């Protein structure tokens, strides 16, 4: 059983600058417009209200996409779910093994080969050693990278890196998969494969949270959606309803 529960969770990002050390007074962000809904002051530090008052309950089988314009708080919410950010208000509870794939997988070592990187991720995420051969075969089949897997990752194209990262994220099935635009880099064939894989992966009833600007991709993978605007949760529920609200002009 995996489960995610957010209760009025918010993330306020402080902007640290050299003023906090106060050795010298140097030009800073002091003149930025503050006191608006998005930015405020706490002492000398500026605070960005990246996410406020989000409440969610997700359980096994939920496939949710995050939609909203740039800066709406999609990545912040994913980082909150991944445990990268701690909530500054409200609370969060996450049950289950989380794999966060935010951006292209930065953990990859560019000078190491594809195979070495698989071993690296397996090591860092504590994949069971006994099943390594299965994982590797699975990744070989999915990525279709062939002999490229024996070459350093730095020579891979963006799409090839996305394939490898996605294959590794889903090889040792996590309970909760968080994806931020990661699939977008691949070609149409890869997108189709990724969808198939996610559907198969969901046969084991897990949670997926996906942030994407691709309406088509969201529709194919997800059933629910969270619509964010300026760090606030505008809507959480049926995906079609969310897209209808999103496409409405903002007044």
């Amino acid at each position, binding site marked *: 059983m995996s489960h995610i*529960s957010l209760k009025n*969770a918010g993330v*306020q*990002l*402080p902007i*640290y600058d*050299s003023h*906090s*050390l106060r*050795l010298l007074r140097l030009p800073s962000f002091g003149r930025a417009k503050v006191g608006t809904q998005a930015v405020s002051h*706490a*002492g000398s*530090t500026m*605070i960005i209200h990246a996410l406020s008052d989000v409440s969610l309950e997700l359980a096994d089988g939920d496939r949710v996409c995050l939609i909203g314009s740039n800066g709406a708080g999609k990545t912040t919410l994913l*980082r909150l779910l*991944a*445990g*990268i*950010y*701690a*909530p*500054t*208000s*409200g*609370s*969060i*509870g*996450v*049950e289950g093994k*989380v*794999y*966060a*794939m*935010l*951006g292209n*997988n*930065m*953990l990859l*070592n560019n*000078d*190491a080969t594809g195979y*070495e990187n698989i*071993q*690296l991720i397996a*090591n*860092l*995420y*504590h994949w069971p050693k006994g099943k390594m051969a299965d994982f590797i075969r699975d990744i070989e089949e999915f990525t279709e990278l062939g002999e490229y897997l024996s070459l*350093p990752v730095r020579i891979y194209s963006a799409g090839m890196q996305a394939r490898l990262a996605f294959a590794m994220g889903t090889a040792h099935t996590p309970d909760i998969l*968080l994806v*931020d635009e990661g699939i977008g880099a691949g070609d149409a064939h890869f997108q189709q494969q990724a969808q198939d894989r996610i559907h198969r992966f969901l046969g084991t009833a897990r949670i997926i949270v996906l942030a994407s600007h691709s309406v088509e991709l969201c529709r194919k993978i997800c059933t629910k959606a969270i619509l964010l605007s300026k760090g606030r949760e505008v809507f959480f529920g049926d995906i079609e309803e969310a897209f209808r609200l999103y496409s409405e002009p903002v007044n």
Partner: protein
Amino acid sequence: MNTPMATVAMDDQFAQGLPQRLFVRTMVNLRTSFTWAWLDTKCQYRRSRIGPLWETINVAVMVSGLALVTSGLFGGNIGDLIGYIGLGIIIWSAISTLVIEGCSTFVRNTGQILSSNISIDLYVGRTVSKALIIFAHHLALYLVGLVFGLVPLTWISALAIPGILLLFLNGSFVVTILAFICARYRDLELIIRNLLQVAFMVTPVFWNYQLIGAHRKFIVDYNILFYFVQIVRLPLLGEVPSAQIYLVAIGTTVVTFFVAVLTYYKMRRRLAFFL
């Protein structure tokens, strides 16, 4: 910043900041982070013919230069000095790698910390393991010294092993502290680099501590870094370190452990905000 922090029910991401568990986690993550650092080293060898051994060559050159100057300044046979200075520089380079790399541990990995959810302890472990691997490379010079009879090999030499362990154990707590604090206060890394240069001059790494005048003896007596140099160097020179040296080194490690716990406790939740 005094923003109130809410309670988190998340299983281990933040609850793992529980102080008493830091030590256990350090041990558990040892293998994982060592494997990570080993891959880094392998890749380094791939791009340059002798990889990290370049640094060992730097050390060898520096030792020769310093031995030449020191024997000229203070007198003494260069053959006797080179063992003392060589071991001193090898140990010092471990200390300096730990401090410098420690400062940038989180800052350097900003992208990875913000985009994946592996335990941040692994970044600390990677830095410490990397320093250990480089140190092991430098020990090749010790072997050369053995072959040429510049350093003695006795049973006492084995006492260096607990010394090295203590040096790196303390090092891992220092790396934890520096990694957090330097992520928050970016000026500190530059200040620390400067201080480290001064510390190299002040610490009896390449000069004989017995030659110091009585009125400046405090430079040696109150220099914690010197004790860490000595717990490794003395046994390799065939001397048993005094109980005082061990007590200071162990005492320091206990203190840095608790400071690391405190740093973790105070800053772990806000780490991603610093980056």
